[in-house]
């Protein structure tokens, strides 16, 4: 059902946790539909220098959260905004069709965190 890469990120998720003094925090999903992803960012000169996540959800939700943090770290916020949910799924070697719909929100959480950072800058 899941690729080895999905299982690897589920079993050994990267960048789990919170950043106490985060520059941006984004959260998507809700417990009713079964997935919540929360992403914390540290940003220096428009570059994502640190990123952490917390996720309530299935194996795919945890794996996509982990993967998006790896993909986003070190990128500028412009580059990070170009990351899509599809790209995250592809980086994991694909997800089962039903998971594309219900668990692949990681890029949305990242974008929400960047939006939160930008709002704070205003």
């Amino acid at each position, binding site marked *: 059902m899941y690729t080895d890469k999905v299982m690897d990120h589920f079993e050994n998720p990267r960048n*789990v946790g919170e950043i106490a003094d985060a520059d941006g925090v984004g959260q998507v999903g*809700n417990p*009713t*539909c*079964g997935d*919540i992803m929360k992403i914390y960012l540290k940003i220096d000169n428009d570059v994502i220098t640190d990123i952490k996540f*917390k996720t*309530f959800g299935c194996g795919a939700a945890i794996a996509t959260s982990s993967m998006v943090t790896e993909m986003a770290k070190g990128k500028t916020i412009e580059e990070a905004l170009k990351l899509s949910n599809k790209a995250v799924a592809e980086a994991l070697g694909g997800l089962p069709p039903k*998971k594309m719909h219900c668990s692949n929100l990681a890029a949305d959480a990242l974008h929400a965190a960047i939006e939160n950072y930008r709002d704070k800058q205003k």
Partner: protein
Amino acid sequence: MRRVYFDHSATTPVRPEVAEVMQNYLTANFGNPTSLHYFGRQVRKALEEAREKVAAAIGAKPEEIVFTSGGTESDNMAIHGVAMINKNRGNHIITSAVEHHAVINTVKALGKQGFTVTILPVDKYGLVSVEDLANAITDKTILISIMHANNEVGTIQPIEELAAVAREKGIPFHTDAVQSMGKIPVNVDKLGVDLLTISGHKIYGPKGVGALYIRKGTRWRQSLFHGGAQERLRRAGTENVPGIIGLGKACELAVQDLEKESAYLTTLRDKLIKEVMDRISNVRVTGHPTRRLPNHASFCFEFIEGESMLLSLDMKGIAASSGSACTSGSLEPSHVLLAMGIPHELAHGSIRITLGRDNTEADIDYFMEIMPPIVERLRAMSPLDQENEFAMESSCAACKVSTSCHR
């Protein structure tokens, strides 16, 4: 890696004694039971002996047993068969909100064909109220179908009382006994039912075979399959002989061992429930505290999701199941848990442990060694906790479970 199987409500291994009696009917005794020659006659004899065993196991007469491909077909056959022959008398069918999809979806399909359907609610333990049933009956009611024991939470319905209400009004009563058979006594006269479903692979028999009991005198008409005259014109198609022989043996053994196995499984189950509740915080046991199957323990773990728990358990060699949306192929968690009033967010965190005759106390000990760290790890990863328990206001249009969402 150590492997522990805790998913016996999904399926059971075939008992060696069952496999042994089936073997002969795959090879040496291969005749078609409809054939008149020696090869056919030998198989026909064995088939009728299997029918006697199935009938004896539930207190029925052999001629009241129809062999089918399993629980789903038996449920469909029972509901369609009664509905179709009685449609000139009325068009109202009553069932419950916690039925297996084999019943719910069959009744809903009839709802699109001019029948009206009442789906009875359940209480927080998953029980149907006798009073609710009595109040739901109209002069158009032609069938009531309520399961004996629930597959997700293990709750045992008061079938004797429910069926008595139906009998008083002369309404046929069907019960799906797929989960109860072999775990608690199942007797058609004591239960007072007119139709009853059983399945082979839930009682250490083979997959792809089951039976429908139809009480003599019940108005019922074959309406699913058209073909030959097998099963006294009640189910066309060459009989699944090895499966039926296996079903007969499995029924015989199930009844023979019921008391001993039920006591053994109850002890294991109670140990499991106690240890989970003692050693893991923020867990709820789902289902009825006493009216539950002896092998059945189901839980909702707060703040974490069922599929994540299942995957984590599987990585440690433990097989369980969940009513979480992510394992069902739909975006909705278990309809049973929702019908019991369990909120969506909690229903997503469900785990079902169903024990079997080969499980041991050491299996429970292994589970208790593995499960607490899994819960701790997933909770550490979750943005939810007691202070922030499901506090979000937003909801999800994509999931169609509430009002608006991020997608």
